[in-house]
């Protein structure tokens, strides 16, 4: 049976800050306004551009470029390194502002949020008018240089598409009247969730445009293109029905570090792993979890990759427990090569309240209490006031970062705000 386009009233608003990190820097420093600037992970030539300003984007500078390439395109570009507390402050301010309009605000990343207006009195007004008011309030209450794109539609997928149509500072509504016109204007890759690999999969099945995608039957998408229920979800979301309103449950905690100076020396890598375990352990304990598995992934300087994960019989809670198991995996490496990137995560999470207590390992209970006491001291006096000895001299090495695209770390942000 063919399903028609959803004719329900657009009640979902997607708000996306334009060039968030770069605009925040231009807001803070008026002398940078109107100039091509970029926020990069490092200001060194190989540093990765995280956020080019609107002026830099006009010169062809894109996210993911190297700083040296950005300088080739624009010799006078100003490079800044990230200032996470500033971006978190902007995030908290805009989420607070959005809650004046809807009780259901879902942050999607540090610079994006979805507002659901279903069953709210505000629907008696035009949502486009509400969108304009939000834009105006953001400029007054957060900063005159902060602009955003707003998309309004009947589901999250179309609202995000609407927010990407006219950058910067756009406001678009997609409903059953203009949906097909919009699909005729965009490319497959412009659809949220379609990357190069999915695009080639769609092409292989004779789907070359969003309109072809829309016209494909539910059976074709489910059985031929995606070969899973994902195909059915696509069929519905392309028609404006909601399939993404699910908040994923936390399954792991992880930390990553790209080495400024790649090395193959285990004596230098061990303190880095310890610091990653400390950061991961702090978040694990704050969430009142214990873990039972560790995953270690290493990207080598020669672009090869190795990873290993292992489940353990005992639960892991303290930084020392996490670190001991991480080092166990580290020593499984078939060959010691120069490391460019380290990534550690713990999984198999259980709530600490459901943890099986041991009759015989009294020392373990003491160690857990010690870990909580150390966390409490660090909460009171600042991060890394008390650390394992192996982490000495590491304070400025693995620095604070804002996760890209992820929302899970925002849990920590709300914890800090309270």
């Amino acid at each position: 049976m063919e399903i028609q386009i959803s004719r329900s009233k657009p009640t979902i608003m997607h708000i996306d800050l334009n060039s968030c990190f770069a605009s925040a820097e231009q807001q803070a420093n008026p002398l940078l306004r109107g100039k091509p600037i970029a926020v990069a992970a490092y200001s060194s030539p190989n540093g990765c551009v995280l956020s080019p300003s609107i002026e830099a984007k006009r010169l062809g500078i894109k996210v993911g470029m190297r700083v040296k390439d950005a300088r080739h395109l624009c010799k006078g570009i100003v490079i800044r390194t990230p200032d996470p507390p500033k971006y978190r402050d902007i995030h908290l301010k805009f989420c607070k502002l959005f809650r004046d309009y809807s009780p259901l605000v879902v942050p999607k990343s540090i610079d994006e949020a979805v507002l659901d207006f279903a069953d709210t009195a505000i629907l008696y007004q035009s949502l486009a008018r509400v969108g304009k008011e939000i834009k105006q309030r953001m400029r007054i209450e957060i900063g005159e240089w902060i602009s955003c794109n707003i998309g309004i539609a009947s589901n999250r997928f179309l609202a995000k598409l609407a927010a990407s149509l006219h950058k910067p500072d756009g406001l678009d509504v997609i409903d059953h009247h203009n949906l097909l016109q919009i699909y005729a204007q965009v490319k497959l890759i412009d659809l949220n969730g379609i990357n190069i690999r999915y695009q080639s999969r769609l092409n292989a099945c004779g789907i070359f445009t969003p309109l072809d995608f829309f016209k494909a039957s539910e059976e074709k998408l489910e059985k031929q293109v995606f070969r899973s229920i994902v195909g059915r979800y696509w069929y519905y979301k392309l028609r404006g029905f909601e399939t993404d309103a699910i908040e994923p449950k936390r399954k792991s905690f992880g930390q990553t570090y790209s080495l400024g100076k790649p090395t193959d020396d285990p004596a230098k890598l061990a303190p880095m792993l310890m610091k990653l375990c400390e950061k991961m352990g702090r978040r694990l304990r704050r969430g009142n979890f214990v873990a039972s598995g560790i995953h270690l992934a290493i990207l080598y300087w020669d672009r090869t990759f190795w990873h290993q994960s292992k489940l353990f019989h005992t639960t892991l809670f303290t930084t020392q427990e996490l670190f001991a198991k991480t080092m166990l995996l580290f020593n499984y490496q078939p060959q010691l090569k120069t490391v460019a990137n380290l990534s550690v995560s713990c999984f198999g999470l259980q709530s600490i309240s459901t943890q099986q207590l041991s009759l015989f390992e009294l020392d373990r209970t003491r160690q857990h209490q010690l870990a909580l006491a150390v966390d409490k001291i660090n909460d009171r006096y600042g991060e890394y006031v008390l650390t394992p000895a192996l982490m000495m001299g590491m304070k400025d090495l693995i620095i604070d970062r804002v996760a890209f695209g992820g929302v899970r770390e925002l849990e920590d942000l709300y914890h800090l705000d309270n």
Partner: protein
Amino acid sequence: MQEIINEKVSVIMTYNQSSGLVKPEKIKWQGRVHTIETIGYHHKFHEGKKLIHIFSVADRCLAFRLRFDSDTLHWTLEEISDGNPN
């Protein structure tokens, strides 16, 4: 050009009870007084339980990043910038 300073500075600040606005007006750094013309952004964060305020401000030709420690009530000039590349 951006330069890290991290020096204690003298600051004159005003508070307007009707608008609720708090504004650093003047900074004295290395014997020179800079009159603040623009408040770019103000944000705060915690270092442990200590609340830190950061005021990003500018006069006509320099931008300043000022740190106010609400525990010690000390002001630090963290960095300056003239808005040009390093």
